[in-house]
């Protein structure tokens, strides 16, 4: 009797072992692939911030997900030539040609420098034809159970002919090429539908790419069968926080900076994150929690959105629109709105808060109007001074009128010091410098006003999302609930 029993036990043990091995091998086979695409369309529009963002994303991902396979495509790739622009304030000296640059309106460009990218392990350029071929090949190799991310860091455009069609929005790729939402949707069609595919788009008009969750990227309420979700730094109709060529990483306030800080557990400067990033307290910061952290912490000019938020906005039927907009039901969105309102020092009571929001917005609009008025007046003054100086210079050094000639090159070698001494000695030169510097300051102040106004807009947007979620919970059909839940699961699954 003992023998048959032990044989049965052995068979059971064997079966369990086989099962465990199958599960383990299945897990081992499933891979996480992350595509990181970055850089601008030309060296002039490929700011250093983009390169630093991509490098930081790579560092963070290698730390958080060392087992993930990274596929990096950046600018011109690894070939010869420059694809990164960085800027440093030029010295106010004749050696730096800054007086001459000021007279000819190139005082900012005089600080530009170009060099090849230093992004590690770049597989190739982002030129459209090359990238489409590479991605198509790599996407078709994904197997059921694999997970994929596509992270884009660069510039985007609205379609000039169809600016109201979000699916016509494009990524600006190297060589001044473009890839539209529809083209990317077709490309992603090669991915097995059983693969969870997530994306992050941070460029201008990036909200158009949230259409990737719809069938053929069309304007439909329902979701495509593929398991896709993601995040965008802006709507389909707004520009995102500008890219900077500055070297000061601490100044960066873009979506990537905050999103990956939350996922990586530390800020860009290596500092600890504030409490509450892990909103559900499960010990892991999910992509959705990282997105919520961006909404709360990023004081910038962006109104970011996720695919589940986009789903709610597209779901809302006409008869629920503009109804009860003075209230905000108690849910995750209204909590976030209240937290941001508290950061901004807004009253908690609905009516008082609305009044204060409108008062502050009106103040910012007035400030912006005054700055724009001052800017226009200064631009006219600067132009007039520049024309006057250029005429005086051309009277003594006529070769200045013909750049890219031998005489001009000779001027730069032999006469530039004397010409610049002449410029600096002009009585109105100091006024030109002051006016140009003030114009730079005005641009920064306008960005600050835009950021402040966007933060007020963020409170209103989140209150609107809270109402939408409340309506959805009351009126959505079973199919719509299942679709929304699918998106939330996708956005909440750990990296």
């Amino acid at each position, binding site marked *: 009797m003992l023998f048959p029993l032990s044989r049965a036990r052995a068979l059971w043990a064997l079966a369990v072992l086989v099962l465990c091995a199958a599960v383990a091998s299945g897990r081992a086979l499933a891979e996480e692939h992350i595509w990181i695409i970055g850089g601008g369309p030309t060296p002039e529009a490929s700011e250093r911030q983009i390169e630093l963002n991509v490098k930081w994303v790579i560092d963070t991902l290698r730390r958080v997900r060392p087992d993930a396979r990274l596929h990096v495509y950046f600018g011109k790739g690894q070939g010869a030539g420059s694809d990164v622009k960085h800027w440093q304030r030029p010295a106010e000296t004749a050696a730096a040609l800054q007086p001459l640059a000021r007279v000819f309106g190139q005082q900012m460009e005089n600080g530009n420098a170009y060099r090849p990218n230093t992004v590690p392990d770049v597989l190739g350029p982002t030129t459209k034809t090359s990238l489409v071929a590479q991605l198509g090949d790599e996407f078709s190799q994904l197997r059921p159970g694999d997970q994929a991310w596509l992270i884009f860091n660069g510039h985007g455009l609205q379609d000039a002919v169809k*600016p109201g069609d979000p699916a016509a929005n494009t990524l600006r790729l190297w060589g001044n090429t473009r890839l539209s939402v529809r083209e990317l949707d077709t490309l992603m069609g090669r991915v097995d539908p059983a693969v969870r595919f997530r994306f992050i788009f941070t460029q201008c008009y990036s909200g158009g790419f949230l259409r990737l969750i719809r069938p053929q990227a069309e304007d439909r309420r329902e979701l495509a069968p593929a398991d896709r979700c993601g995040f965008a730094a802006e709507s389909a*109709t707004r520009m995102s926080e500008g890219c900077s060529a500055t070297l000061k990483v601490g100044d960066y306030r873009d979506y990537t900076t905050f999103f990956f800080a939350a996922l990586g557990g530390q800020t860009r400067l290596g500092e600890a994150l504030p409490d509450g990033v892990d909103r559900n307290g499960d010990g892991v910061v999910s992509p959705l929690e990282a997105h919520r952290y961006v909404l709360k912490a990023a004081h910038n000019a962006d109104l970011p959105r996720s695919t589940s938020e986009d789903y709610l906005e597209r779901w809302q039927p006409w*008869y*629920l*629109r*503009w109804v009860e*907009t003075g209230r905000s039901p108690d849910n995750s969105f209204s909590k976030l709105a209240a937290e941001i309102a508290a950061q901004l020092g807004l009253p908690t009571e609905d009516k008082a808060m609305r009044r204060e929001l*409108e008062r502050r917005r009106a103040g910012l609009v007035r400030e912006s109007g005054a700055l724009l008025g001052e800017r226009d007046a200064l631009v006219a003054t600067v132009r007039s001074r520049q024309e006057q100086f250029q005429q005086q210079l051309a009277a003594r050094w006529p070769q200045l009128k013909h750049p890219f000639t031998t005489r001009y090159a000779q001027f730069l070698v032999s006469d530039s010091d004397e010409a610049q001494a002449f410029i600096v000695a002009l009585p109105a030169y100091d006024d030109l410098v002051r006016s140009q510097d003030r114009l730079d300051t005005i641009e920064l102040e306008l960005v600050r006003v835009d950021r402040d106004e*966007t933060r007020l807009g963020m409170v209103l947007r989140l*209150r609107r999302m809270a109402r939408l979620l409340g309506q959805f919970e009351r009126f959505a059909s079973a199919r719509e609930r299942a679709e929304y839940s699918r998106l939330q699961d996708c956005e909440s699954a750990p990296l």
Partner: protein
Amino acid sequence: MSRMKLYLGRIFTLRLVLALIVVPALAYPLFTTFLLAVDTFFGDAEALHQFRSESAMALARLLAADWLAALPVLYGVLGLAIVLAQVARACDPHQRSWPTLAASSFLATAIAVGGSVALGATPGAFAAAMALAGALLGGFLVLLLGRHSKQCSFR
């Protein structure tokens, strides 16, 4: 004389048909204007926020899409109001106007209250009431034209 009557009858029939087509189509802009005013002065100014912070074109497209989506419902409401009015008139041996008005008003109130209960919202009642205003206006037009010409009568 009979030619004149026929001519007048055709004009009134044309006006009736136009009224039936136009009134529900105008009802949506009417109640949306009302809701937007409530939103702007008593709410979060959601529409204004979308206009300023998102895109004026996107907002216009949204309103146009909503208008198209609302049309079948508004035409349905008008149809219901007309049927109810006709039933009320048919039941009245003296063929007076007030039963029709009462029936239309009852329908308006029923839909407004039902709408507000369903939406769980106070302005929702106004929305439904405003939608019904178009239907009521249509009812009035039917009554008005019905007095002038028998051809306009639904009987």
